[in-house]
């Protein structure tokens, strides 16, 4: 999970110690380091309301910092809190996911000024994104979560099994089932696309 360890362990240790001691700047730094990762995960897990969910996850992180083993990286601990919190949100709302608002408040993808996007390609991408959103909503949260960790955050199976406290075989089975549902849901798109 190299992509999610933005701070060297010694700096991280210092930040956590300072945050525990009541240093707001140190905790703010932790939030800044991991907010994109957490919002991204929540957005894919629960759809809209990802920012509120992320805020609650950081509050939970702060409340449990004194239990956190500082010799370990923060990201897996944060993923575990995020996973449990997103499952709680979905359970509380009694739904599998919340529809994602398209384009509202999204970061703009950087584009070259001299290269105008092909309108057909843009429409096709938007369609595919909608299809993927719907397909993701059809994947049960217990499969969706490890699928996101594996394919978006590029976390290894071993690390996911440690985060979710599940055997590797179970993690693999859940990811494979998640992939299967995603594949089935997108077959219509691929056939309509004329492939």
């Amino acid at each position, binding site marked *: 999970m190299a992509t999610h360890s933005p701070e060297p362990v010694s700096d991280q240790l210092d930040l956590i110690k300072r945050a525990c001691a*009541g240093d*707001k700047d140190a*905790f*703010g730094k932790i*939030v*800044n380091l991991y*907010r*994109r990762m957490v*919002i*991204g995960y929540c*957005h*894919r897990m629960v759809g809209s309301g*990802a*920012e509120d969910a*992320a*805020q*609650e996850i*950081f*509050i*939970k*992180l*702060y*409340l*449990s910092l004194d239990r956190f083993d500082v010799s370990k990286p923060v990201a897996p601990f944060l993923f575990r809190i995020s996973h449990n919190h997103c499952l709680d949100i979905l359970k509380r709302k009694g739904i599998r996911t919340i529809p994602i608002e398209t384009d*509202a*408040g*999204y*970061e703009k*993808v950087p584009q070259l000024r001299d290269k105008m996007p092909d309108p057909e390609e843009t429409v096709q991408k938007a369609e*595919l*994104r909608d*299809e*993927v959103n719907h*397909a*993701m909503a059809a994947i049960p949260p217990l499969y969706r979560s490890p*699928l*996101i960790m594996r*394919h*978006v955050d590029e976390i290894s*199976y071993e690390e996911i099994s440690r985060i979710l406290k599940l055997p590797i075989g179970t993690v*693999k089975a859940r990811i*494979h089932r998640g*992939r299967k549902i*995603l*594949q*089935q*849901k*997108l*077959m219509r*798109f*691929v*056939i309509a696309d004329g*492939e």
Partner: protein
Amino acid sequence: MSGCIDFQRLMHRYLDGEVSQGEKALFDRHLTICRDCAREFKALQLGLNMLASMPVPEPAPGFTSETVKKAFMAKRLLARRQKVMAWFLAGLTVIISTLILASWTIIFQPALKWAALNLLRALSASDVIFNTLNRFLSGLKTILISLGDKAPQLLLHGAAPVLYGYLTALIIMVSFILIRRIRYRAIFI
């Protein structure tokens, strides 16, 4: 690769980058000859690529400062609530312990006395009433008779600390569990 079923199995390993060069060649070849498998693979690849590259909402400008403020406020609230709850549980423990002590002299002590005396009476008629349990009861009877008048006293003084100890330990355990549960419950403002 014998066919499409093997391809399905291999697909997951292929996506995880766990295939050998030979398997990769077989996989790529199968994609060129089987249209259904090629479609399935394309669907999955498109889906996973889109999932990974899906735009994520930008956090609001004051996200970090607001989160920090709420987190610190939540910790203060949690500490205050824990303190109140700890005092409440301590008070509750004292009240329940007092009630147990009071009930000991009012209910348990007379009940134990009655049970001990009646047990002796029942055992004296055991030959008639409990023929089938004779062997077991006669052993017990011997012990109790040998104790004589001391039996009720012994029952009272032997059972009292044990029973009281169990109840107090139970109350402390429940209080401890409750305090821990409250400790880990996050408060959101």
